[in-house]
Structure formats: structure tokens, C-alpha cells
């Protein structure tokens, strides 16, 4: 469990997405309740889907334990998957919201700007 192969890139991906938002995109997404509500819902479904993908009894994705922290929770999900998943979904969402703000700079999106 060197953690280099998965744990480290997973942590870096989260930092990179935060830097992308705070230094470049500045969408304000992290201040919107709608974002955090969405993330809780996504997290719930991630546990189901990822739990199925990683279950040790019949895994679809198999991890080399040398490259992970070895912590699997809940069920058999490597905790790194949650960082990976968060970075993936949030990065796309940031670019999505940014484009909406570009399209409607003053008016803003009634749904997205407020929330």
C-alpha cells in the first residue's frame, strides 16, 4: 500500500478541481445550496453503483491493493473512489455552469444563479 498509484492522484484531482474553480472559473458553485444538495444525491447513487462495481464477492473493477490505502467503505468501495467521483462530476458541472454564465452574463440563469 504505497498509495502512489491511486490515493495520491485521487487527492491531487480534488485539489486540482478546487484550484480550477477558485483560481480560474470562479462560478461560485461551491456557495450554492443546489450544488451540495446535488452532491448528496450523487453520493447516494454512487454508493449503489460503485458498491456493485467493486464488491469483492464478484468485482467488476479490481484494484491492486499496493496502490490504494486499503480502506474500503462502505461495503467494498475503496475510499479513493469518492475523491475520484467527486472530481469527475464536479469538474464537468463547473464547466457546464460556467457556460451558462457566459451565455447569460447579466440576467443569469434564474435557476442556477440564485441557487
Amino acid at each position: 500500500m504505497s498509495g502512489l498509484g491511486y490515493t495520491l492522484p485521487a487527492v491531487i484531482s480534488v485539489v486540482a478541481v478546487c484550484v480550477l474553480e477558485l483560481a480560474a472559473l470562479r462560478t461560485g458553485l461551491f456557495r450554492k445550496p443546489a450544488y451540495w444538495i446535488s452532491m448528496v444525491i450523487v453520493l447516494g447513487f454512487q454508493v449503489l453503483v460503485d458498491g456493485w462495481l467493486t464488491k469483492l464477492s464478484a468485482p467488476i473493477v479490481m484494484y491492486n491493493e499496493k496502490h490504494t490505502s486499503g480502506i474500503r467503505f462502505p461495503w467494498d468501495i475503496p475510499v479513493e473512489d469518492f475523491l475520484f467521483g467527486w472530481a469527475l462530476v464536479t469538474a464537468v458541472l463547473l464547466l457546464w455552469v460556467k457556460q451558462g454564465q457566459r451565455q447569460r452574463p447579466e440576467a443569469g440563469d434564474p435557476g442556477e444563479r440564485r441557487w
Partner: protein
Amino acid sequence: MDKWQYLLLLGVCLLVTLPLEFLGEGIYRQPIRLLRALAPVLAVFLVWDAIAIAADVWHYNPRYVSGINVPFMPLEELLFFIVIPICGLLTWNAVTGILARMARMRRRSEQRSGR
């Protein structure tokens, strides 16, 4: 049947999240915006995934994948990076749509009660 498991799981994700399209301004109905949000993130994660597979950080159980391969990875893995962010965007679409609708209803009822 087993070898379609990963593909079926992704299909279920798309099917379950499809109705969310209609709770807001839509994700599939803005294909160019979707492509622009997805493509850069997809590129980064595909490179990460290809490196991780090459370095044996993770691999896929041949029992549960179709055997159809795109360069560096199973077809399913490429689709994963398209399907999962779309599910996240659809969740955001639904949450912002519902919150905007709730705000409109609140405003209307406030106007009616003369506030």
C-alpha cells in the same frame, strides 16, 4: 449474460436519470453545451485511466465486460466517463429546476397574500 453486466449497469444509470431531464431546462437538450462541459474532463480522466490500467493500479474482470475494447481500455470504461457526469448534470438540472419552481410558487403566494 454476465459479460454485459458493466454495460447494463451504465444503461440502468442512464435510464433511471432520464426523467430528471424534464425537471429543469435540460441537459440532453443542450448538446453543444454538454459536449463542451464533458470533453475536456473526459480527456483528462481517460489519460488518467489509461495510465492506471497500464500501471496495473486497477483492471477489469473479464467475466463482467463485453470484451469490446477501445484503445487502452474496455468500451465500458470509456462510457463510464460519459454516463456518470451526465447523471451528475441531470441531478443538478433537477435540483435547480425544483428549487426555482419552489421559489416561483413562494413568490406567487406572497403576492396573493398581499405582502
